[in-house]
């Protein structure tokens, strides 16, 4: 029991760290306006907005990126530590801390991704696709009276699906921990009888 390794947690921890590294360079979601007049590359750890070839920085989003990066990093490292010491008294707490982090980040990313187009639709009447291509017509208030239609496209890149896998592994590590604990209980020698 003492030397047992939670391999699922180990895989989850490694995949989270790999996910962080990948996400710095490859976006989870890419949105393109025109060909491309505007390009948004988005992942929880990196945001890149390019307008007509000019890169635009948004400090608040950069801060959120760093927050997500640190959160994922903490979760990944914690899962790695837990995975090699799953039977220690503190291990369950490490697991409880670590496995939730990628889940939180993934859910937050999806919620933000859904919320922003809904908000844009409600505020300025622009219906942006989450996935696929569309031709959207700008409201006349935004196009000075002329009819302006723009080809837009959105796509989820493979790191997004890898993030789902990493999150699933983290949850599986939590489930696998129960099996490890159950096995450990069965492996314990029977308690000696207490004689009066």
């Amino acid at each position, binding site marked *: 029991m003492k030397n047992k390794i939670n391999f699922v947690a180990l895989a989850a921890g490694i995949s989270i760290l790999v996910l962080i590294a990948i996400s710095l360079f490859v976006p989870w979601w890419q949105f393109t306006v*025109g060909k491309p007049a505007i390009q948004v590359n988005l992942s929880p750890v990196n945001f890149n907005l390019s307008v007509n070839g000019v890169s635009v920085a*948004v*400090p*608040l989003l*950069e801060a959120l990126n760093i927050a997500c990066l640190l*959160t994922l990093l903490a979760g990944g490292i914690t899962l790695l530590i837990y995975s090699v010491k799953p039977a220690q008294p503190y291990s369950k707490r490490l697991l409880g801390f670590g496995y939730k982090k990628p889940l939180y980040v993934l859910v937050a990313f999806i919620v933000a991704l859904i919320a922003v187009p809904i908000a844009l639709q409600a505020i300025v009447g622009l219906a942006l696709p989450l996935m696929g291509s569309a031709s959207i017509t700008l409201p006349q208030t935004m196009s000075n009276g002329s*009819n302006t239609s723009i080809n837009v496209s959105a796509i989820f890149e493979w790191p997004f699906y890898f993030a789902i896998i990493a999150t699933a592994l983290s949850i599986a590590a939590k489930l696998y921990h129960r099996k490890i604990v159950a096995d450990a209980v069965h492996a314990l020698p029977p308690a000696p009888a207490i004689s009066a």
Partner: protein
Amino acid sequence: MQALKIILVLITIGCIVGPIGAVVIIYRNNLSQMVITPQIKQLTNSGNNNSNNNGNNNSNNNNNGNNNNINPNSSNNPNNNNENNNGSNGNVTGNNQNNNNSNNNNSNNSNNTDSSNNNNNPSGVSPTFLNGQINTAQKTITLTFSITNNLNQDTTLSEMSGIVEVTNDQYQLGTVSLQHAPVTISSSQTITVTVSGALTQDGQSHLAQDYKGVTSLDVTVANGSFTEDGVTNQSQQPQDLGAVTVN
């Protein structure tokens, strides 16, 4: 165990509050700049200039057509942008007056960064009418435009079209469209493009009857459409180009 719990809670809080708190502290004097940075303001202004440029080509074209005073670098001129910012339409003198006013407004309301942006990256891509010709013998309409790419990247013009009308009576002469599309325009480059089409039989008859012997005719483009890098801009209002040669 209790210490570990506290440490993990602190890590959780620190991961989120740390970066966000740092940005809030950095921008504490102007919190809106956390989202709407000066750079975004510049781009927004530039976008407005672009839209207004497109919308106001009419006045530029008119001036060029009537005065043969072609200024292909008009969109590079920051004053011109200010003019367009002001949303002015109409004659040259009126625009110049508005231009001065809007310059003053910009001086008062904008910082230096905004002004420099107008110089460096003023207004995207916009066509300026150079000249035109209606050939009644060959039944062709040919319009020539100058297009400057003020963007920081190459752009592709895939479509440019419209219906040519006589300005006086709005009689439709024919539809013109971009020849040799698509056209790629390098950054900061100015090119000349030709849009042409057939003069309709009705249009030819109309010119023969109502404008016989006329060598110069004011024309307007209705339903003008301009597609650049997948962005299509269609004018609601007819664009008065000014005079074209009739032969």
